């Protein structure tokens, strides 16, 4: 079989994103990661919700599902649990995942379902033309909050760690090499992988630009000595600093790197155990006949 290149994972559809959108980088890195893993495109299922970021699977070659706002994770679970042989990747955004979709996060993570969630975090609702999102900064303007954001923000890293994700990482759309490495690791990881990708929106979020991140990023593994990746407490301590850069945007830096990586039985492992215990019935009639008055 011929070796597949990154190009072989791209569909015919041209992306509709604005020039300079960070999501282009995410698309590239995903295609490269899949190529490095030589995944069979017919067995990769990309699932997304609604939003600019959720358009991504349409630009990938494979079996993809562009679903409902906030519900990609639910659809993805249905795919993965019924077909554990498939690689399932959720492509989502900060609003899709942490606003409307947030109710699904604890449950996919606590079960350690073996899917990969890639969230493109641009701290804004782009497709609906500029509203604040759960990861927006204080004072950030939005069409429904023109006076500037007063809602506070979530900490996606800390949340997913708390909910039980077993691979938690953050990367940056402007660093193709780092993104590709992280996405590849996330896909390979057995269990729930959550990757947050800082993805600039040049159209609506003027603050979180490539220019800003040029000198406001720090690698938590290389530069902050966070190498004990299977230590939950250490991961949480690092996660607490995820939003230092919200409190002190000028001086503090945003993170890239892996917070947590641990091997635990996946949901599928436990399902198989139950199936082995319960056994199999080949004859459907037997399942009907148990409703007959019992022979005594």
């Amino acid at each position: 079989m011929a070796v597949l290149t990154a190009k072989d994972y791209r569909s015919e559809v041209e992306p509709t994103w604005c020039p300079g959108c960070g999501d282009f980088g995410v698309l590239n890195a995903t295609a490269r990661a899949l190529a490095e893993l030589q995944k069979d495109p017919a067995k990769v299922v990309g699932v997304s919700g609604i939003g600019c970021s959720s358009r991504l699977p349409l630009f990938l070659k494979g079996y993809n599902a562009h679903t409902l706002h906030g519900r990609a994770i639910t659809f993805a679970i249905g795919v993965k649990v019924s077909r554990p042989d498939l690689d399932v990747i959720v492509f989502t955004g900060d609003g899709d995942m942490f606003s409307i979709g947030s109710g699904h996060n604890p449950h996919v993570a606590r079960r350690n379902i073996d899917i990969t969630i890639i969230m493109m975090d641009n701290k804004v609702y782009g497709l609906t033309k500029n509203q604040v999102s759960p990861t927006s900064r204080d004072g950030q303007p939005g069409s429904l909050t023109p006076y500037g954001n007063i809602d506070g923000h979530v900490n996606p890293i800390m949340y997913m760690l708390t909910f039980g994700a077993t691979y938690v990482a953050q990367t940056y759309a402007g660093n193709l090499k780092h993104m590709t490495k992280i996405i590849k690791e996330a896909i390979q990881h057995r269990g729930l992988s959550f990757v947050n990708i800082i993805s600039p929106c040049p159209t609506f979020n003027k603050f979180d630009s490539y220019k800003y991140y040029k000198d406001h990023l720090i690698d938590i593994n290389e530069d902050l000595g966070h190498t004990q990746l299977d230590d939950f407490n250490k991961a949480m301590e690092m996660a607490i600093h995820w939003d230092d850069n919200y409190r002190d945007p000028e001086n503090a830096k945003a993170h890239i790197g892996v917070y947590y990586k641990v091997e635990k039985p996946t949901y599928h492992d436990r399902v198989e155990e139950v199936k082995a215990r319960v056994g199999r019935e080949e004859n459907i009639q037997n399942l009907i006949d148990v409703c007959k008055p019992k022979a005594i």
Partner: protein
Amino acid sequence: MAENKGFDLVIKVGGEGGEGVITAGDFLTETAARAGYWAVNYKSYPAEIKGGYAQSTVRISDDRVYSTGDSFDILCAFNGEAVEKNMVFLKRAKDEAKPKVLVYDSTDYEPAEELENVIYYPVPLSELAKDVMKAYITKNIIALGVLSELFGIPEQSIKDAIKAKFMRKGEKIVELNYKAFDLGRQYVRENLQKKDPYKFPQPRTPEDVVIMEGNQAVAKGSIAAGVEFYAAYPITPATTVGNHIVMDLIKRGGWLYQAEDEIASLGMALGASFAGKKSMTATSGPGISLMSEFISYAGITELPIVIVDVQRGGPGTGMPTKHEQADLFVCAFGGHGDFPRAILAATTVEDNFYLAVEAFNLAEKYQIPVFLMTDGALAIREEVFPTPKIEQRPDGKVVVKGNIPYGVDEIEVINRWVYNAEEDKEGKFRSPTGRFLRYKTDTPTGITPMGIPGDPNALHAITGLERTENSDPRFTPEIRVKQMNKRFRKLQTLLREDADRYYKDMRIDSDNAEVAIISWGLTASIAREAAERLRQQGYTVNEFYPRLLWPVKAEVFEEFASKAKRVIVPETNYHGQFAFILRATTNIKDIISYVAYRGEAFIPKEIEDFVKMAIEKDIKKGWFTPSDVYGTVVGAI
């Protein structure tokens, strides 16, 4: 079965939850089956977790029965509350030909007055259980002994039912229960004199039957259809579909996923469908409302899906444990926009089994959302019915046979049309650049093959957006109109090829009958009995109980309606929802809506009396309730 023709007895057991009232009813149902008779058991649990009034109404007959009739012949009351709750029926005895019998626990209760045409049998059940058996828990078994001795319910059949239930707990427990049963019989022999005419006939050769409750039948039917994925969120009264299916599903290699909410449930089921598996969810009204966005999504993405709606009293949180059939509107019209769907509605427990198979067939063949509508009363109702037979053929085909109640001989399980590149050498479903055309618009049926993940020849993306044939989002007017036409062509195909299958439960007595009755769901089972009574009194009654409620094949309904002087549609919802739909989709000139919305099913008498009133007053249209017939707030109950 010529001997014992005409045996038909209704025994109601009522009392406090926790005293084995429901179990007693279950035993009577099983006893009927073991003795070669048919039974329908309508039960209701208390609303509380502990205590509260519970009842089980068992109708036993030598012929198939589909409702529990107007009320009981025999009431076995475990406490005073049970007597009080049924006082309205006991008081009616004076106007009826047959007497009513009241067997009651006389330990702490005495009826305040003796009613006309009611026969009283006091039995100190609690005292016997506590002081003689020294096991209060055996109270209901003692009661069964009492009923057996009084009415000739075959002793061996009851004892076999007792043994079947308790044998896994050991000989001692079986013996204890036999002792309780015999104690009840002995008490009657020594203390009571039979004054009533009710007598159970001799046992017959038992038929090959199953006993199932409604939600269990949905579960088993779905297993027969080959369901592999079930996702649901618990909600009364739908939860037990999941309870009944879970272990069977695992044994068949599938999985039940308890989701975090109803939206997730349907999302997951659709994901499993996309991945190539037959999948389903089951919920009630509030859940259908939550699911509406995904229902609309299923409609445009053309993913096969079965959604079971076990209806309850609405609106809002409504009356979770009460009967109503008020979700027809939300099943037919819920979910924004226009898209094809189908609705099947079960009239009995037996229907629930076979229509579950049909629901999957329609979903798989037409790649549409299919609603299987049932309700909380059917969900827990038990029926004795002929055992369905599942033929698993060597080529993988599965055929369901049995006494299929709506007029078809067998149901072949249908699987979705999956794209096979070998069969498409001309590339009919491929674009010039080789892309798979999942939504090609020019097939005559509107149905196009699905691509299943793993197949390298059918890679495609699905989206909720309007799209081209290769599934790329695009909404030019031409693309939009072609895609919409494609989707609705599927419905036209359904009407042409499959609708008639669900319209066979029709009876034409006359081309100019006094009345034509159209009904659906549980109400159909009750209307059937009313129709038979009317017929025996000399009325000409045409009947039609469609199992397919949407889409509507107008000409069938129009032709049926044309053969009677008036059309009555009884149903238990305020709007008269099916009548509303028929007025909108057919040319039937006038339809009478006869509705009840008190949280309980009609009793046959209410439909019978209304038909007579409609004939007498020459009513042709309008909206009526049992209050119009009886002058009371809630009709004849």
